């Protein structure tokens, strides 16, 4: 499927299969992954993506149509996770296929920028503080 909001893991291989086709000499895929950033609340362990589903799906379709028209992209993929996404997992996959590399790169760049700025998705960080080793009890050691 060209546009998708999914609570299941996203696959780069599946995106490539979606994009491959006869005469399509340039395939560009961008993936975004959850980083283990340090925050005030500790180290990020996951992100939780919230979505307003109907307008989000409609917006993804609009972005797809615009990319096809503006860049002549023969095939386009715009997939985004919703719900909880753990560190290292893919949160977003966009890709574009064209006969040549320049429009494929331009289309992929357009896709990810539009997704970030215009699709009603929000993320919340889930972080955890590193555990400190337990303090020794009683005497601190030999005197």
């Amino acid at each position, binding site marked *: 499927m060209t546009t998708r909001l999914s609570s299941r893991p996203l696959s780069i291989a599946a995106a490539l299969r979606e994009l491959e086709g006869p005469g399509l000499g340039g395939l560009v895929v961008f993936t*975004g992954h959850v980083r283990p950033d340090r925050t005030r609340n500790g180290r990020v362990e996951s992100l939780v*993506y*919230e979505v*307003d589903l*109907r*307008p989000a799906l*409609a917006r993804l379709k609009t972005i797809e149509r615009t990319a096809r028209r503006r860049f002549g992209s023969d095939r386009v993929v715009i997939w*985004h996770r919703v719900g909880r996404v753990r560190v290292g997992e893919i*949160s*977003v996959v966009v890709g574009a296929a064209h006969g040549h590399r320049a429009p494929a790169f331009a289309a992929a760049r357009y896709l*990810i920028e539009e*997704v*970030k*700025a*215009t*699709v*009603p*998705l*929000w*993320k*919340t960080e889930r972080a955890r503080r590193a555990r400190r080793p337990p303090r020794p009890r009683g005497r601190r050691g030999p005197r």
Partner: protein
Amino acid sequence: MRPVTVRLFASAREAIGRGTVDWPVPAGGVPAKELVRALREAYPRLGPALRVSRFLRNDRYLTDLSERVGPGDEFSIHPPYGGG
């Protein structure tokens, strides 16, 4: 009379602690900006989110807040997006 269903997301939802609010309106509805003002007065903590949000009526973005929102409508509050 059916109310407007106000749908809140992200920082707007966190500001009032819930994702939907049923808001009574007269039969002819009210301009969206009046609804926003009434929500701000009822939930002062919502103010910062309202200042930066986009608004939708029945999944359509409102470009003019003088448009009316009426009984049975959904009115969605979208703070700045953060996908990717």
